[in-house]
C-alpha cells in the first residue's frame, strides 16, 4: 500500500505560472525519496497534488492503482485519513493543546477517546515532546512546533507520508532523529517523500534524490548510483 505513479503531470496556475511541467515519476511501495530544488521549483506543489489540495492541470496521478484526480469528492476524506503530511507552515491549531493537535487525525475517524490519547502520546514521545502535551503551540519553539506537526503526521500510521521541509527549524541532531523516524515508517511499508533544502541530509541519508528546477525533473538518483 503506497505505490505512486505520476504520468506527464503539469500544474499550471490561473496566472499562467507553471509549477510542474510534464513530470513523470514512480515511487514503489515502501520507498523513500528526497525532493529538492531551489525555492519555487515546485516541491510544495508536488506534495499538494498528492494531498489533493490541488488538482493537476494535465496528466494522471495514480496512487495504489487509483487515479486520485478522479476520486469522487466524498472519497477524498478517507484517502487523506491514510496519509500523513507535514506542512511547511505547520498548520497547527493555536487554540488546541499539543496533544489535541496531534490527536486530530484520529479524532476525525471517531476512534475511542482512550485509544486516541494512547496513540497521540506515543507519537509525541517519538518526537520527544511528551512533556509538553498540555502546552499550546504558541508556547513552543519553532523546532518544537515542527515536531508536533511531525507527530500529527505519523499518528495515524499512514501508508503515504509526505513532508515539506520537516527539518527546516531543527538542529542537525534532531534532523537526523526525525529522518530516522521517517525511515522507520518506510520499514513498516509506508512510502515516504520529503521535500528539503538540506544538502547535508541529502548527501548522508543514502536515499533516492529527485531534483526539480522550474517544475521539471532535472535529476533522479537512486542511492549508490
Amino acid at each position, binding site marked *: 500500500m503506497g505505490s505512486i505513479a505520476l504520468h506527464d503531470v503539469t500544474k499550471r496556475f490561473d496566472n499562467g505560472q507553471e509549477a510542474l511541467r510534464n513530470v513523470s515519476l514512480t515511487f514503489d511501495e515502501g520507498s523513500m525519496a528526497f525532493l529538492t530544488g531551489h525555492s519555487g521549483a515546485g516541491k510544495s506543489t508536488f506534495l499538494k497534488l498528492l494531498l489533493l489540495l490541488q488538482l493537476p492541470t494535465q496528466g494522471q496521478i495514480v496512487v495504489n492503482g*487509483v487515479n486520485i484526480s478522479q476520486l469522487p469528492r466524498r472519497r477524498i*476524506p478517507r484517502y*487523506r485519513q491514510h496519509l500523513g*503530511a507535514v506542512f511547511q507552515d505547520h498548520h497547527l*491549531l493555536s487554540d488546541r493543546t499539543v496533544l489535541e493537535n496531534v490527536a486530530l487525525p484520529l479524532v476525525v*475517524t471517531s*476512534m475511542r477517546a482512550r485509544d486516541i490519547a494512547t496513540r497521540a502520546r506515543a507519537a509525541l514521545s517519538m518526537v520527544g515532546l511528551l512533556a509538553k502535551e498540555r502546552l499550546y503551540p504558541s508556547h513552543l519553539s519553532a523546532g518544537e512546533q515542527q515536531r508536533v506537526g511531525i507527530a500529527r503526521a505519523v499518528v495515524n500510521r499512514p501508508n503515504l507520508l509526505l513532508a515539506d521541509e520537516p527539518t527546516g527549524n531543527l538542529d542537525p541532531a534532531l534532523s537526523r532523529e526525525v529522518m530516522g523516524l521517517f525511515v522507520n515508517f518506510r520499514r513498516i511499508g509506508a512510502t515516504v517523500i520529503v521535500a528539503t533544502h538540506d544538502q547535508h541530509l541529502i548527501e548522508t541519508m543514502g536515499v533516492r534524490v529527485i531534483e526539480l528546477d522550474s517544475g521539471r525533473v532535472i535529476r533522479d538518483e537512486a542511492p549508490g548510483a
Partner: protein
Amino acid sequence: MMGGDRDPWPPVQRPRFAWIRDHWRVSRDCFTLACRRLWSSLLVWLLIGISLALPAALYLLQRNLAAAAGQWDGRPSFTVYLQTGIEIGVAEGIADRLDAQPEVERAWVITPQQALAEFSEGLTITDALEVLGENPLPASVRATVADGVSEGELQRFIAEQSAAEGVDEVVLEKAWLERMAAISDFVGRVGWILAAVFGLGAALVTASSVRLVIESRLEELSVQKLVGGTDAFVRRPFLYFGLFYGVGGGMVAAMLVAGSLVALEAPLVTLFDSYKERLTIEGMGGPLVGALLGVGGLLGLFGALIATNRRLKQVELA
C-alpha cells in the same frame, strides 16, 4: 480503479457507538464556545425570537378568533322583532313560550330601552333620542339556539316563529359571525405570510451568525479537512450552533408570546364577557411551545447548513 475486490483506503474501524461520542463531544464544544460568545449568542436568540414570536402570536390570535366564531356558530341567536305597540307582557309571554321549546336554549326580553341602548351604541342615549324623537323601537325577544339544532331545523323553526301572532320578523344573527370568520381567515393568512417572511429572516440570521462562527474557526476547518475530516464531521459543530441558536430563539419567542398573553388576557376576557359568552382563551399550550422550539431548531439547522455548505466548497482546494 484497482479491481473492486480490495479497497485501497479502507475505512478506519469505527466503534459501534462512535456517533454518540462524536455528538457528545461536539455539543460540549459548542456549548463552551457559545458561552464564550455569550453576548452575541443572546443577541442572535433575541433576533430569532422576535422573528418567530410575531407569527406565533398571530397564530394564537387566529386560533382564538376561530374558536370564538366556532363557539357562537354552534349556538347562533335570533331576535324576534315584535310589531310596534305590542305590550311588554306579550313579549314576556313569547319569551316564556320560546324558552319552553327544545330548539331554544334561553330566551329573554329586550325592552325598548335596551333596544335603544343597543341601537345607539357609540352615541349617548340622549343623542339617539334627539335623532329618533321618542323611542320608536318595539320590544323584542332574543333567544339563543340549543345545541345540536341543525341548520334546516333552525330555518323551519324560525319560519314558524315568524308566522306567530304579534311577530313582525325573526332575524337570525349571523352577519357578524361571518365577519368574524372572515377576520380570523384574514389574520390566519397574515400569520402565514409573516411566518414565511420572518422564518426566512430567522434562517438568515442564523446563517450569518454561523458564518461568523465559521470565519473565526476557518483555520480549524481547513486543518480538519487536511487530516481527512469528512464534510459531515467538519460541518457538525456548526450545525449544532445553528440548532442551539434556533432552539434558543424559539425559547425566546415562547417567552415573548407568553408575556404578551399575560398582558392581553384581562382586556380580552372583558371583551368576550361583553358578548355574554363564556370563552376560554387559548394560551401557550405545550404543543405550541414545542412547535416554536422545533421550528426554531429546524430554521437554525437550515441556516447553518446554508452557511457551512458555501464555506466548505470554498476551502475544498487550498
